[in-house]
């Protein structure tokens, strides 16, 4: 399959650069983004061709920036879009969907999408050592995918990261470096390391290619809705790239003829109150976010004080008629529990944030109750179990005797959950 990407385009001045491991325009420091020959893609792509391919993110290969076939993460993507009827009923809305990347392969977050593109591209560029600055999910994914690809990996994380996310990185044999500092300090260190050692850092010098992987979440949403776009998407924001790439995916699907109607989806952004640079920017109607020096939230995966795409995310939210909100740690935990209890989806803290923000936007009337909503769930709750530990009742313990269970069942108050209704034939 030909490579339909045409180069890297500055998001500020529009100047084009060749396909190379770099992330900013030397003329104005604007971030670079992959550009495509959409006219050529339009001739090459069709719904029939896509649906005939395996159900993973590479079925949208024409709109991903590789010269050859993907060599890393061939099974990534293809996660379920769940019709969330029980949650919709609790929220008092008509049509609600959950895009569940908590079960993405291989490391249970949407980051597998971006990493598979970045590491495939790293191989094309000839890198043998790769790395990242991460709040956890990216660390897991780079480590796992690098292991499978036989690449050496250097993973930099804030030293106070959740234990499960550090374990879930080290287990793959990666070189994990805990840095005593915030994510933004880790990120600045990694920028120096990437350029000094000439390694392929997925979210630094490979970032334009890496970020394109997020589009596949948007492609899948639209395809699973029957080749159409939802009225509302609620998306968690850390660096702010995902929300923009989902919208870019929708725009591209229309541009290449996969979806007939233009995109009118309202994009809504979700952050934690303890790290809310983008939501604050939107609500205060500022053009540029003010970075947060010391994020303070249980939602560590969204704890980026200086989001690289903050300006663009805020602008997109305004331009599409969406909104942005932030929620407290208590609301985040409530969101995690509600999602698990109603839909059987155990999301990490970012998922709790997304649901809690969606509730807030519905209550504010910014999302009408009769319009279709998609919630983007980006990571798995097994990685952030400590956050819900105190909110979960420990199960009652009995001896293995029916009398003990009878007594327990008769006293519903001693069970950790409400007494279930008996089903009779």
């Amino acid at each position, binding site marked *: 399959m030909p490579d339909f990407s045409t180069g890297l385009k500055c998001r500020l001045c529009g100047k084009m650069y060749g396909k190379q491991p770099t992330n900013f325009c030397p003329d104005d420091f604007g971030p670079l983004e992959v550009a495509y020959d959409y006219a050529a893609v339009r001739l090459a792509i069709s719904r029939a061709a896509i649906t005939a391919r395996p159900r993973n993110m590479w079925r949208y290969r024409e709109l991903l920036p590789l010269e050859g076939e993907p060599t890393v993460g061939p099974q990534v993507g293809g996660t379920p879009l769940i019709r969330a009827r029980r949650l919709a009923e609790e929220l008092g809305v008509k049509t609600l969907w959950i895009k569940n990347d908590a079960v993405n392969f291989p490391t249970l977050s949407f980051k597998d999408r971006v990493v598979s593109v970045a590491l495939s591209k790293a191989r094309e560029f000839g890198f043998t050592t790769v790395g990242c*600055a991460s709040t956890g999910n990216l660390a897991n994914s780079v480590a796992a995918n690098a292991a499978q690809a036989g690449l050496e990996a250097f993973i930099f994380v804030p030293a106070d990261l959740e234990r499960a996310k550090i374990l879930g990185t080290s287990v793959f044999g990666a070189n994990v470096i805990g840095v005593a500092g915030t*994510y933004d300090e880790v990120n600045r260190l990694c920028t120096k390391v990437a350029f000094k050692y000439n390694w392929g850092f997925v979210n630094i010098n490979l970032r334009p290619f890496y970020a394109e992987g997020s589009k596949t979440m948007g492609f899948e949403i639209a395809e699973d809705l029957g080749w159409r776009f939802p009225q509302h998407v609620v998306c968690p924001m850390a660096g702010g790239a995902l929300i923009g790439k989902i919208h870019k995916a929708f725009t591209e699907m229309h541009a290449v003829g996969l979806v007939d109607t233009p995109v009118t989806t309202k994009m809504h952004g979700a952050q934690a109150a303890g790290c809310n640079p983008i939501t604050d920017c939107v609500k205060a109607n500022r053009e540029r976010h003010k970075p947060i020096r010391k994020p303070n939230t249980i939602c560590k995966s969204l704890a980026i004080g200086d989001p690289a795409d903050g300006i663009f995310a805020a602008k997109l939210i305004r331009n599409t008629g969406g909104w942005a909100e932030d929620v407290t740690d208590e609301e985040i935990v409530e969101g995690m529990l509600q999602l698990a209890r109603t839909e059987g989806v155990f999301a990490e803290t970012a998922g709790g944030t997304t649901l809690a923000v969606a509730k807030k936007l519905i209550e504010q009337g910014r999302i009408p109750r009769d319009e279709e909503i998609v919630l983007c769930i980006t990571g798995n709750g097994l990685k952030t179990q400590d956050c819900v530990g105190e909110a979960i009742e420990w199960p009652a313990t009995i001896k293995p005797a029916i009398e003990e269970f009878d007594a327990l069942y008769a006293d519903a108050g001693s069970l950790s959950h409400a007494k279930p209704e008996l089903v009779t034939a």
Partner: protein
Amino acid sequence: MPVTFKIDNEMRQFTEGVGTVPVAGGTVAAALGDLAKQYPKLQSRLYNATGALNPFVMVLVNDEDVRTFDAEWETPVADTDVLELLPPTSGG
């Protein structure tokens, strides 16, 4: 005494390879202005046509992002302060 402006490796392409530049100025904005005056290649990169600061410029003051301070670019700088010009933020 001038303030010290450190230039990250990636940004030295605009300062003729120089890594440490003494600058004058009582605030971060003034110090940055003096840096651009000394190295004209930086002028059009740090400021737009109307003279406004480019939103992707990243400067640290004693290792802290200047935009996190209350006064942001108008933060006063003393002789002992160290400023650093970095590439734009990435990550995420």
